[in-house]
């Protein structure tokens, strides 16, 4: 029931959502619209520990403020930033790079898990290509026949999100050319079905379909 003493969102959550916009590429409205903000903040705190989360958050706040973006984060903080972004996009906490897992001295097992059934349903990744989560939010009979809308362009995305010139990449010199996406940014074949999405290897460079055997 409406409790006049507790706000719709706490200041912590508000701050979390505001600075997750440059991580996820989605607006505050979209992030709140998942209904998961508070739950995700709790999850991140629990997964990296409250103190380390506070350190990470201070670093990320500074990186946004001084215009450095993700590439000015330390490697461990970069991995945490990835995990937070993965969480928003998929509803799951990912498997971290083992080196980051060790450096953070994390208690929980380094395994991917879905935060809650409703978290999967609120994954943002589906919206990046104008889709809907498999098994939820069905769009209606015959809608799959309609041509999908064109790819949104980066300038208007930045503009809509009020994000200016901040570089949103690490370890890459320029924006990825969409007509020549490198294999290390794409998933490759899952060797077995139990491999969680965050542990799927990247694609090998453009494969050759045949090879001679001696």
């Amino acid at each position: 029931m409406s409790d006049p003493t507790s706000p719709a969102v706490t200041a912590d959550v508000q701050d979390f959502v505001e600075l997750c916009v440059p991580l996820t590429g989605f607006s505050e409205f979209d992030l709140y619209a998942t209904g998961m903000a508070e739950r995700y903040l709790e999850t991140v705190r629990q997964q990296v520990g409250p103190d380390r989360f506070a350190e990470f958050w201070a670093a990320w706040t500074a990186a946004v403020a001084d215009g450095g973006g993700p590439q000015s984060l330390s490697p461990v903080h970069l991995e945490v930033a990835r995990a937070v972004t993965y969480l928003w996009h998929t509803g799951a906490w990912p498997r971290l790079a083992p080196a980051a897992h060790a450096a953070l001295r994390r208690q929980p097992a380094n395994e991917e898990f879905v935060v809650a059934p409703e978290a999967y349903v609120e994954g943002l990744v589906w919206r990046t290509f104008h889709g809907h989560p498999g098994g939820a939010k069905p769009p209606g009979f015959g809608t799959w026949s309609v041509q999908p809308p064109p790819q949104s362009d980066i300038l208007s995305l930045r503009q809509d999100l009020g994000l200016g010139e901040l570089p949103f990449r690490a370890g890459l010199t320029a924006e990825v050319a969409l007509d020549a996406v490198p294999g290390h940014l794409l998933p490759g074949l899952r060797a077995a079905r139990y491999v969680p999405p965050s542990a799927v290897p990247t694609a090998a460079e453009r494969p050759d379909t045949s090879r001679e055997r001696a």
Partner: protein
Amino acid sequence: MTGTVGADEAVRRRYDVVVVGGGWAGSLLAKDLGERGWQVLVLEAGNGGAETWPGYLDSLSTFYSAVAKVPNSGYRRSVAAPFPDVLDLAPVRDPEPGEREYTANGYFVQNGRLPYGTDYLRELGGAAMHWLGAVPRMHPEDFATNERFGYGRDWPITAADLQPWYARAEFEIGVAGDAQGQRELGVVTDPDYVFPMHQIPASWIDRYCTGLDGTPILDEVADEQYPLKVHSLPQARNSTPNPDYRPGPYRPSSAVGLPNYGERCVGNASCVPICPVQAKSHPLRQQARFPRTVTTATRCVVTRVRLAGPTMGGRVSGVEFRAYTDPASPVGRSYVVEAGVVVLAAHAIENARLLLFSGLANGSDQVGRNLMDHPTVLNWALADERRGPVGPFRGPGHTSGWEVFRFGEGRRRRAPFRIEIGNWGWGWATGAPMSNVATALGVGGDRQGEIRPDGVFGPELRRLLGSTIGRQLQLQIAVEQSANPGNRVTLDRRHRDATGNLRPVLTYDLDPHTRSGVYAARLVAARIFQRLDATDWTNHAPRDGVPPLGHFTHTVDGTTLDLAYSGAGHGAGTHVMGSSPRDSVVDAFQRTWEHPNLYAVGCGSMPSIGTSNPTLTMLALALRSAEQIHQDLVLDRRPADVRPADEAEVPA
């Protein structure tokens, strides 16, 4: 629906028919016989629950929570009635040359050269709870590949014999399709036939591919050019009723447990593992229409078929089963139930397991042999960036295919294949779209476990994902595997489940004809991608020493390819039908040759599976068997000889 009952109640009576298994075949057959007035008991090994709406929502929620959204991810594992899962298989890192490249760590014991990568489900409704709903008929030539092309086993019946049964099955389960297109393929022969519902609308991806209609594609193994044409796939999925259907009007069925729901597919795009609205047909619908003559008991694991006394001419008297209350515990209690006819409808592998354990029907030594599946080779590519996104992850799993490689003389040189145009991007091959997020961000570290330096965020991430997911194309190509007696289910007393039942031991491999089909399919897919100006990212080679499951290499004309296949869930062939008891297990009515009142129904009876998803053929056969069982029972129950009325008989 009279609801399910417990074992104690179930065994109070003698039945006309006991059906082992509450999946597709068992449910359809039980309903048919029950409607004819016979007393039928259906024994389901698995749990029930999904027939109530809260129970169904629980399955949906279980699926949402699963990290690996595999076909069984909506259902909990069971100790009392264990079942195989695709998660049971693991690749072996750096395998020795010639050694097995996988381990099997679940319900199946596997000792074959290649893994049997198919699962099923022991749960009320069976594996049909997670099936896709693809229901193409088989082609006339599929029934006689040996006679026509010199490979595989032939059927004792023809496609023409099955046509009326196909039509009935399509009514019972509710099929949406384009009959004209199926007539063009030669699989529907009645010139006036229409399906109960109009075809499921084609996806945008289908339309994108239709641009290649008329383009010839070289299959160098068959040494033939095949002109492409996209055909709509018949599906057991609710669509718009076709007013021309006779006898009409056809009304799509609602969800079981929630009235007026699921009357159309609404595009959840998750048919496998679970259709959230139940627009996809499943056996619980049949069960909801069971007449009062049919009794269903869940959590009853049939352990043995009982042979009747020596004077009974090889007849069986009933079955033994163990009933349990807690799926997490192996504790149970044994019962015997008797019936006039016993029907095994428990999945090809479970039927074989029961026959082998019971020591029945195996005079031909064919029980458990000829195990088949549709080895499925995945091909994935990114569509041309200039033409924009194609709209993956929308609509049913696949709505159209390229059919031309299924038929004709090419079958002599390689197994035929059906190209499914996938609607769900790279999901099956790579775990997309979640894995796209991970690799674009660079989360999870590199090969050595170090933190990766590269990755994108924010608007750049959104843009990259929009493009690299939005352009995903995947062709799943199901290759025919023909009957080979070496591919088999056996039992070994050393391998038991927690309740003491013997687990299936599988020996599986692909023969050169099938391997050549996989090889040809891979190259054809590559050519199609080329024609679409798509970038082919398919790669089945071992990665960092880890071969993908189902990996093998195959050489044709001096060229060797790394290939890999996945299981399609189409287990078949373990109690094949034939025209002679010498070399087959059941006759053309799926009645065991040796036991006149023991039927083994399901895909296990199929001598070949062509390139059609086998469920519809299985159901046509089941309905045909139901008719025969009815005739058997009538004969059994009628007096052998009725004298004319004038012969001084006293009226009752």
